[in-house]
């Protein structure tokens, strides 16, 4: 600690500047990887993606060993597990009570949540790129003799990214809506599973399937969407992304923190 007198009021402009959204996003990215749980979750995502690639190129049919299929399989564990990192990014602020530190530094609560969503999007992008690299390595090693092995429509690459990023944003939404790690994780997996179970009832199957996020998400990595499929998937996924996030924002901005 310096011994000089404490400046009052005459604070240099640089010190007073509001932290930029870019810097806050970087901080939130750091928070996703610097805890024990975050670190192991990301390692698990990487390990499972690698495993998916290896299994696909060793055991898959010739038609499955093309780059686009290897990539779809590589991204499947990412889409399932990565959102948990997103859930924890928000919910741990409450479960671990760090909200009392984070919002003391960034009192504009909407801004901090915006940084978390942006960080989630960036992590989803990184995860997609890692998936592409793993899938490319696997494809190059194992399937070089298959015709059109590298062919992938650009649209499908975009959908692959959309798959990961959508799952991530839904996860962040669940973390924000529930503000508690365990219930958020349980509901994130339980709610779609519960919906799928309800689809067994014949009379409401159509309605259930149209709002089932799992089907909509998984179809993203399957084939390039036409207009009708876009309409269907966009509506379902928007609902799952926007609704929890809106509930979360309402709770976070309205409620007293740290009770």
């Amino acid at each position, binding site marked *: *600690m*310096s*011994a*000089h*007198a*404490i*400046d*009052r*009021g*005459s*604070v240099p402009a*640089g*010190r*007073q*500047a*509001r*932290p930029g959204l870019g*810097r*806050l996003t*970087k*901080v939130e990215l*750091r*928070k996703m990887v*610097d*805890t*024990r*749980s*975050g670190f192991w979750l990301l390692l698990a995502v990487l390990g499972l993606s690698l495993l998916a690639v290896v299994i696909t190129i060793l055991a898959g049919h010739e038609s499955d060993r093309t780059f686009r299929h290897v990539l779809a399989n590589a991204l499947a564990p990412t889409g399932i597990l990565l959102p948990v990192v997103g859930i924890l990014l928000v919910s*741990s602020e409450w479960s*671990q*009570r*760090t*909200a*009392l*530190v984070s*919002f*003391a*530094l*960034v*009192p*504009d609560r909407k801004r901090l949540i915006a940084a978390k969503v942006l960080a989630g999007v960036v992590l989803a992008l990184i995860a997609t790129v890692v998936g592409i690299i793993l899938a490319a390595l696997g494809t190059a090693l194992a399937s070089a003799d298959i015709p059109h092995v590298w062919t992938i429509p650009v649209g499908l690459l975009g959908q692959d990214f959309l798959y990961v990023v959508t799952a991530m944003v839904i996860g962040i939404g669940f973390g924000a809506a529930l503000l508690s790690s365990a219930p958020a994780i349980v509901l994130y997996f339980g709610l779609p599973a519960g919906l799928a179970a309800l689809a067994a009832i014949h009379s409401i199957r159509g309605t259930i399937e149209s709002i089932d996020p799992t089907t909509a998400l998984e179809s993203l990595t399957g084939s390039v969407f036409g207009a009708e499929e876009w309409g269907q998937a966009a509506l379902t996924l928007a609902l799952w992304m926007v609704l929890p996030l809106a509930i979360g924002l309402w709770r976070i901005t309205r409620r*007293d*923190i*740290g009770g």
Partner: protein
Amino acid sequence: MGAARKGKAGVMIEAEKLTKRFGGRAVVDDVSFRCEPGTVTGFLGPNGAGKTTTMRMICGFAGPDSGRAAVCGGRYRDLPNPGRRIGVLLDASAQHGGRRGREALAITAQTIGVEERRVDDLLGLVRLDKSAAKKRVRQYSLGMRQRLGIANALIGEPEVLILDEPANGLDPEGMRWMRGLLKDFADRGGTVLLSSHLLHEVDAIADRLVIIGDGKIVAQGSRDELLSDAGTLVRAEDAAALSGALGAAGHAAREAEGGGLLVDAEPRAVGVVARDAGIALVHLAPAGDAGLEQLFFDLTSGEKEEVAV
């Protein structure tokens, strides 16, 4: 100067008629006080008296039902980069258990735009050594968490410190260290508001005391002011007779902790009553510390009743 200080000159923290209700009950009731530069204000009260809620309202975590709070001349949440002006420690346990101590500080530094080098200086200042800095916060004792929290509050070289029960869990050596740190901070022109439920923790450092009980301010002022208001401590060989005589003269008297009677009157008035009743006194003096302790003891015993309800 100038633009940054729109509020009343010289007031860094200001609570004005702050009131907060939970389920109809006012947990903070019409609380007003001010903290000025160069001073340490001790915010004293038993657990559950409303200290934490008041401090959280000052820092924008909870909205008051009425009244207002200002820091550095404005609302906390309107400060663009509060970490560079106000160091806050609201709960030492509010750190991610799975994060390393040094990393927790590095996150704050990055958020408020301070070079990460400063983190190591601060770890040294709060005496967390290299091995402690590398440990995950889950493994920290409460005392270590307090040190980490104080380092976290100081990273941005703030002008104001707001610390909720920072001495909790510190050993006697740690308390002496913190006392020196806060005194030095105030001597250099900083403003400190710290809360405690133990009188002796803040008695030695606070220039001013704000005492809260059951949501209301019970007393506030400089230590000397409070001590002079504390009444008279008197001892007589025949305590019962003295008590009766004081009662007859209209002075409220009660038994003080550690013997004697605590009287709500000047020593002179008590002396006159004793003389007129022909009672020999053993001790007659301003109550001072004993009076402050009694005031505190009364608040604390009130709290116990509340818990039972």
